[in-house]
């Protein structure tokens, strides 16, 4: 039963929130990068400490590449990848994967879709065969489309129970407006109903191309072994021209927007924030340091120290910048009993204002840098993390020397930089505020 009460486990992930897959230190981790004749970028990191192989294929096709009226297309495509190919039925695929104790999953995000395979070395051949089958031969059977569509609609309905889901959905919508980032990855019941088999087949054949993908492999295999399975299973993957995708503008108008959602709850679930930055913004590293101090730094952050430790108002309070190919968002999240919503919000806004108006101390700055650089080794301490990391570095174009350069990116951030980016990217006047709560009890003054 859900008995293990992970006191603060949520928060571990928060520490990683901004630097997530993309951080660093001087770690001697060898990876080779090649581009195959069909245009596939291949990253290979060999280590033989465990008889396992981790594969991540990143395809540059996500929410960003969907039409508004077809929202949910990328996600539905990904979910259907294991559900029927020219060679196997849905059931045969899962039976074969489970029999070798492997996992094969696909999921879509804002900018891209990933297909991941985790397999024992002894079953590499079988694993790669199945991986290539779902990648190259998916047929999108109508019955499977209908089944998966209903499942997604059902889970959207179920998530209406979850206050953090409601808050997150409303926040996205306000911050990103009409841009694809403003929609749920699952789409909505209405848009899901408009997606046809043709749409799926077209999306799949337009984007799932070797010249639009990155293959990252880590673990117990040599380059000869990798080349052999690639030749055998991905040899037939043909490159083709990519469609031109017009990107929607992120409006980014400055205005205060407050959304209150009334539900029978004991806690107010609050998100406050605004538009953030893209991954290639030169301020990314200064923002990393600033956010660590504000609310990204787990138990050491200012928000945690004040809202949780001093005031006892919440179990969880955090902030993060989600940085995508295009501008992402900045958000602070907190859950507190309905009656404390105003007090918690006052304090959060006070902390934002402090960040915007006062220079951080030398000690804070050096602590933040020490964490961001010193925690790097833990971001590459498993084969799974290594495979994902290199795919991500490649996607965002961070460069082959990113690992060795990251500490200097962080260490060159000054107190003045922190203040400057706080003024630039935090806003106490124009923000989106979403409060899902029992509004009668919360009596918001905002």
């Amino acid at each position: 039963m859900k008995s293990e009460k992970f006191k603060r486990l949520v928060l571990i992930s928060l520490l990683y929130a901004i630097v997530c897959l993309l951080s660093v230190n001087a770690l001697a981790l060898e990876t080779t990068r090649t581009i195959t004749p069909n245009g596939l970028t291949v990253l290979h990191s060999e280590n033989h400490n465990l008889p396992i192989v981790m594969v991540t294929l990143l395809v540059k096709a996500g929410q960003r590449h969907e039409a508004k009226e077809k929202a949910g297309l990328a996600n539905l495509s990904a979910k259907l990848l294991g559900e029927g190919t020219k060679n196997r039925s849905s059931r045969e695929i899962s039976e074969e994967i489970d029999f070798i104790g492997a996992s094969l999953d696909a999921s879509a995000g804002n900018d891209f879709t990933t297909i991941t395979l985790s397999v024992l070395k002894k079953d590499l051949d079988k694993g790669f065969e199945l991986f290539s089958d779902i990648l190259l031969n998916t047929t999108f059977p109508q019955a499977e489309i209908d089944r998966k569509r209903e499942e997604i609609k059902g889970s959207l309905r179920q998530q209406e129970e979850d206050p953090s889901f409601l808050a997150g959905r409303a926040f996205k919508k306000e911050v990103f407006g009409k841009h694809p980032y403003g929609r749920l990855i699952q789409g909505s019941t209405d848009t899901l109903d408009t997606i046809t088999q043709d749409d799926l087949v077209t999306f799949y054949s337009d984007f799932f191309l070797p010249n639009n993908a990155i293959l990252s492999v880590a673990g117990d295999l040599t380059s000869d072994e990798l080349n052999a399975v690639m030749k055998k299973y991905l040899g037939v993957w043909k490159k083709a021209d990519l469609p031109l995708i017009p990107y929607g503008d992120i409006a980014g108008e400055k205005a205060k927007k407050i959304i209150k959602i009334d539900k029978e709850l004991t806690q107010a679930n609050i998100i406050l924030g605004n538009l953030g930055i893209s991954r290639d913004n030169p301020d990314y590293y200064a923002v990393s340091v600033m956010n660590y101090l504000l609310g990204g730094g787990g138990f050491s952050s200012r928000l945690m120290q004040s809202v949780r430790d001093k005031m006892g108002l919440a179990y969880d309070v955090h902030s993060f910048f989600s940085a995508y190919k295009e501008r992402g968002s900045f958000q602070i999240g907190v859950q507190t009993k309905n009656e404390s919503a105003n007090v918690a919000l006052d304090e959060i806004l006070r902390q934002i204002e402090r960040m915007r108006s006062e220079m951080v101390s030398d000690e804070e700055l050096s602590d933040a840098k020490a964490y961001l650089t010193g925690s790097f080794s833990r971001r590459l301490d498993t084969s799974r993390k290594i495979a994902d990391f290199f795919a991500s570095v490649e996607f965002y174009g961070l460069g082959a020397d990113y690992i060795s350069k990251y500490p200097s990116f962080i260490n060159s951030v000054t107190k003045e930089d922190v203040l400057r980016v706080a003024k630039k990217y935090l806003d106490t006047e124009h923000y989106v505020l979403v409060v899902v709560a029992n509004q009668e009890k919360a009596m918001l003054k905002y």
Partner: protein
Amino acid sequence: MRTARIVFFSLFIFLCLHAAVYAAVIKEYRLENGLKVLIIEEHKAPVATFQVWYRTGARDEPAGKSGLSHLLEHMMFKGTTKYGPSVFSNTVQKNGGTDNAYTTKDYTVYFELFSSDRIALSIDLEADRMRNLLLEPKEVLSERQVVMEERRLRYEDDPQSSLFEEVAAATFKVHPYRRPVIGWMSDLGAIERTDLYDYYNANYSPNNAVIIIVGDVNADEIFSKVRSSFEHIPSGPPKKSIVSVEPAQRGEKRVVLQKEAELPFIILTYHTPSFPHEDSYALDILNVILSGGKSSRLYQSIVYEKKIALDVSADYGSFNRDPYLFYFYATVAPGKEIKEVEDALYAEIAKIRKEAPSAREVQKAKNQIESSFIMGQDSIYLQAMKYGIFEMLGDWRLIDTYLDGIRLVTPQAVMEVAGKYLKEDNLTEGILLPIKKVKREE
């Protein structure tokens, strides 16, 4: 990390010598005060984890004080006579580390993850809070509020979790497993500083703890540091083990929870023995056959074929100190009836009680368990956790007993344990009945 290059060099030598899969070399030490220390050298990456496992959890709490273990866990971060509040986590983080803790029914775990050149920092910090906790009254009051918020977040406002809580309380009438680890709200309000202090003194001692270190360390070197920091801590009183035996259930129980929710949710529980009971291995295989992966029986029949549930799962809580549960849960799909899902679950149960699974199904389940053990070794954190779990059951060497037992399970044995435990007299069924209030959105 300056040591990284050297580390990766030595890695290759290590690999060639250790082809065997689970055969990590474990060094076991014991101090005179009773503290046990397990160290596994794992040089594949320049990182390490330091974990302190206390053999105390929700099952060891006095009546009326549920949530005590978990609140104390929170207080362990709120200052000692040597270091003030917040110093612990700040010290860890400014050295690039992460720290956290969790409480279960049976034990409480504190851990840090560091790059390996900083791992020794854990030793002083953990030794200090094993003995010198402050438990300042002001901090106790504030942290009690924090835990109440945690309870609201995880239970009060989460209908499915609320049902789990209801069902556990109904399934066990005697054993402390009936109480939630986080504690009932009114019990939380009743926990005083003195309760925490007494519980801390009774349970937080070297003879009631195990230290587990996994990572890029030299075992003998780090042990000598552990020795010098921990050997002065006196042994605590011998542990008074709470013996509580849940009487056999004689007849089905039923719980209904009416709460604001979107979809009905069902839980079925059956009392079962825990590992290393001789039936536990076949129960584990049974669990994987029913719910391990998308090819499993429950998913295929209830979600895929019949399309009556959004999700369905079984679970067997085998790694508990006392007998716990085999249980099922499912979210009813929109437009479908609770009865349809109930019937389908009971049909699957009836089927496995009557008919042995195929040899291939059993083999598949064994492959899945074996693979998850190997994949788990990718992470030093999970590796330490695995040894810790077995150590809490008596001895980390039970891992071998477990894997040997799994390999021997036959299709016949799976059918037999299903017949023995998944029966009506032994069942508690819980149902979440959604009530919906119309609210507005501005």
